[in-house]
């Protein structure tokens, strides 16, 4: 598969529930990179992916992929989506319900290549499932098919828009491994939109942070998150499930990923926590206990 580098410079007005704002992004992605777009909802991450795929047009700007111009508003040039070698995976799979797994993947191919389909079915563990229709598959299985289908076109760029958000924790981990395996095998330039920091750290060595329609940070995840305000290195987001007062401390049950964890918090300054609160848990990384398993 041809490895493609991306050069993008775009401006677009976006309309959201909270009002109008302008998306203004300029970036370069090298061939074979796996980059994450990170930022709050509605900041323009999906829009940029759609502009790259040709599903949405920018108000102003250009996009060059490999050595080819995909669009340039100043030259009024626009390469239609079907001519762009892009594999796109959305959060909601979007498989053809009346076709089985094999046909779903085959349909995405430009030119039939049976050997390649076999390879994809094998890599994604779909051999046993290949004759089933999407309604007979689990969420994780459907997403595997969606990934295989995106790769069936032999794309130069892979765009993953929160592909694993709808899946449970364990399935996410397994699919993250598959995405890594695929990237290692074919080295396709990949952009992953994810709000899951653990996922971003696992899969990407470059993160582009967007805020208010602009790129505010661009670098290795370790470096970006070194900029956080508190020096504690073990940080994660959790949700408060229960608050119980024991002696002079509050024992708060937090939902961390999929697991409930009880933490003891001294509330001498009358901070109040209620079930449903989202909290940032910060702990010192100095000499935690590490145990090989």
């Amino acid at each position, binding site marked *: 598969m041809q490895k493609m580098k991306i050069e993008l410079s775009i401006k677009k007005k976006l309309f959201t529930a909270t009002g109008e704002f302008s998306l203004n992004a300029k970036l370069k992605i090298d061939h074979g990179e796996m980059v994450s777009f990170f930022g709050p909802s509605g900041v323009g991450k999906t829009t940029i992916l759609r502009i790259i795929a040709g599903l949405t047009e920018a108000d102003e700007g250009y996009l060059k992929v490999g050595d080819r111009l995909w669009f340039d508003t100043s030259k009024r040039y626009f390469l239609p989506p079907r001519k762009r070698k892009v594999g796109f995976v959305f959060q909601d799979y979007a498989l053809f319900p009346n076709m089985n797994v094999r046909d779903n993947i085959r349909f995405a191919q430009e030119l039939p290549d049976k050997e390649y389909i076999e390879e994809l079915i094998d890599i994604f563990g779909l051999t046993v499932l290949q004759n089933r229709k999407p309604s007979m598959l689990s969420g994780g299985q459907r997403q595997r098919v969606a990934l295989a289908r995106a790769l069936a076109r032999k794309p130069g760029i892979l765009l993953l828009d929160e592909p694993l958000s709808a899946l449970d924790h364990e399935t996410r981990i397994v699919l993250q491994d598959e995405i890594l395996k695929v990237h290692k095998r074919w080295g396709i330039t990949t952009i992953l939109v994810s709000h899951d920091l653990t996922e971003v750290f696992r899969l990407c060595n470059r993160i582009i942070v967007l805020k208010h329609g602009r790129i505010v940070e661009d670098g290795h995840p370790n470096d970006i998150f070194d900029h956080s*305000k508190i*020096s504690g290195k073990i940080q994660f987001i959790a949700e408060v499930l229960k608050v119980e007062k024991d002696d*002079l*401390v509050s024992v708060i049950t937090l939902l961390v990923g999929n697991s409930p964890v009880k933490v003891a918090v*001294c509330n001498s300054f009358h901070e109040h926590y209620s079930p449903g609160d989202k909290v940032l848990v910060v702990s*010192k*990384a100095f000499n935690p206990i590490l145990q090989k398993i």
Partner: protein
Amino acid sequence: MNILQGTISCITNQGNLTLVDVNVKGLLVTAIMIGKPVKVRYLKCGEPIELLFNESEVSIGKENSGYLSVLNHLICTVEEIVAGKIFTLIHMLFQGQKLVALIPSRSVKIMELKKGDEITAYIKINEVFLKEIDFS
């Protein structure tokens, strides 16, 4: 959570370990952090900074003499003692600033701590967080 505000007076770096001395009302309070100064925006001499440490990470001493390996010693006065069965909260004043320690109720008994006592709050350097001051 205890919070002290001060100014970074000295930064000592060795690879990924950075020792930060902070001037808090004329006293030096020290923290160790994992990170390189060049990569951490708020780590610059002269910059204002907040120091955070948990109540449970404050040890209390009374009438101590001799040496202790803990670098941070804050001389305080006991303002209020809130006793539980297992833990006791010691509310104290450090140069006008309120601080709180969570210590075993058993220790309070042994030390015969009471309101008005002059005590020393000890905090280890690896138990102090640094926090960038948010001016927004």
